[in-house]
């Protein structure tokens, strides 16, 4: 009887697994295959085998430049998202306002509003004749419009805006688990608000902060739409580079190599997080205690 149960189970899993394999696993394998193909034989079909691509592509100064730009943007986006997201998470976790639900929805709903729309918004806000510049000029703060968009700055702002909800969700996850009685205990022992934050809240929120940083960083280096729209064709990130390889240069082998590099970076960053930071954060991991 047990044997029959197991084979039924395997059969039931087979259909979705096949679906996943056909539309996800196999294409990814193919992607890796392409990065190992010989571009001199064909630029768009997988022919031949070579490891040279990685050397050629990854040592190409243009590509290296794109890598640096991409990771730099990733770091700044993550910092900005953390800076903005942490206070909001704190507020949403602690507020007893009856508008809490609405405010939470307002914070998270942008996930479902098209990224193109949000990017448009930033264009209107940050361009030379845009809202911010108009206000600054009128108030006399600046005499000339600032170059706020179609450069890295614009990308960082726009991407941070897009990825903010993910940071908020992550941090909230940790903050919600902290019992209010811990704060009360600290206060009763004489701690002022800043110390309560520094000694109690911040350390206990680290797991969520860590997870949020990882998530946002990975999404930031992989994002494509926002850098394209807000980068004004002058900023070159890895995804944009890959995109060009596929749509204008038609060197699919090279494009695949770039994407594989990106994928591997994502995996490496995840692993580093798991190994290195997990230890640091586990001492304050509340979920273990509970």
């Amino acid at each position, binding site marked *: 009887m047990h044997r029959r149960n197991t084979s039924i*189970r395997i059969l*039931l899993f087979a*259909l*979705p697994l096949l679906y996943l394999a056909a*539309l*996800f696993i*196999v*294409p*990814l394998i*193919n*992607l890796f295959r*392409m990065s190992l193909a010989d571009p001199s034989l064909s630029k*768009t*079909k*997988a022919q031949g085998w070579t490891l040279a691509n990685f050397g050629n592509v990854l040592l190409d100064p243009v590509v290296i430049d794109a890598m640096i730009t991409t990771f730099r943007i990733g770091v700044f986006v993550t910092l900005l998202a953390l800076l*903005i997201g942490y*206070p*909001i998470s*704190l*507020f949403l976790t602690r*507020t007893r306002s009856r508008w809490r*639900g609405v*405010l*939470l*929805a*307002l*914070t*998270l*709903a*942008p996930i*479902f*509003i*098209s990224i*193109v*729309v*949000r990017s*448009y918004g930033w*264009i*209107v806000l940050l361009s030379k*004749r845009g*809202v911010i510049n108009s206000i600054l000029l009128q108030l006399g703060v600046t005499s000339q419009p600032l170059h706020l968009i179609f450069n890295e700055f614009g990308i960082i702002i726009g991407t941070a805006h897009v990825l903010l909800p*993910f940071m908020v*969700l992550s941090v909230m996850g940790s903050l919600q688990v902290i019992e209010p009685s811990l*704060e009360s205990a600290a206060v009763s022992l004489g701690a002022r608000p800043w110390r309560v*934050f520094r000694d109690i*809240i911040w350390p206990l929120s680290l797991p969520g902060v860590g*997870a949020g940083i990882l*998530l946002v960083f*990975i999404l930031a280096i*992989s994002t*494509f*739409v926002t850098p*394209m*729209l807000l980068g004004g064709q002058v900023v070159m990130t890895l995804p944009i580079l890959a995109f060009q390889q*596929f749509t204008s240069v038609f060197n699919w082998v090279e494009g*695949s190599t770039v*994407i594989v590099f990106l*994928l591997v970076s*994502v995996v490496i960053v*995840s692993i580093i997080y798991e190994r290195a930071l997990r230890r640091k954060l586990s001492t304050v991991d509340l979920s273990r205690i509970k």
Partner: protein
Amino acid sequence: MNIDHPAFRAVIVAIFAFILAPIVVVIAASVSTTNYVSFPPSGFTLRWFVELVTIQIYVDALQYSFVVAVITTLISLAVGTWVALLLRSTQKGRALLQTLFLSPILLPEIALGIGLLQYFSMIGFVRGMIATILAHSIICTPYVIRSVAAVATRLKVSLEESALVLGARPLRVLRDVTIPLLKPGLIGGAVMAFLISFDNVTISMFLAAPGAITLPALLFNQAAESGLNTSLAAISALLVFFTIAVIVLMSWLVGLDKFFAATASSK
């Protein structure tokens, strides 16, 4: 920690302004009488909205997006619910299988888009509606799985066992007890799948074909080629209203906090 401190409050207000600014600005810009986007909008007119109906490519793209989203949702619901229920009754290897089925959203979307583009062309599968639907379903199904699983784990097994001992065969139990009680998860998952498919840009772009392009992908192309104009702002405004309407509808059906609880992601 006093969160009612006025300085903190000011910071929060500023942050919310930051969150909402781009969206508000786009909507405001869509009523400007000028063709180029300006803010504050000069004048007020709804003519751009009216004109949209006459611009064929937008109408086509909207229709296309809608059809793709609906079919994607149906596929994702079916596969996602199936997987969620299977995972629920599996002990061995559940964590591994769970990660496996959720992995499409853990990897960069551009990798999937490019991967599918190459793969489809390699096997001679034509780009277009079916390809787009299949691709969308891969990234939408994990959301359905999460949404349904969130409800399924709280579904007491004794309810299904009750039905069994009362004489119902397994399929009947599914129909009479399991699915009805999974409704909140199904609805939440369906809405998420729909919105994610509808809003998708990257994958849709790679798999678009002449005449078969989604609205967001079209908007992206237009902005990238010729920059922003008020018509584009008008469509964007419509998209925003549409999204808000869907979310409001869903919160009325299922409840806001359940919806966002299922949205919460954790790696």
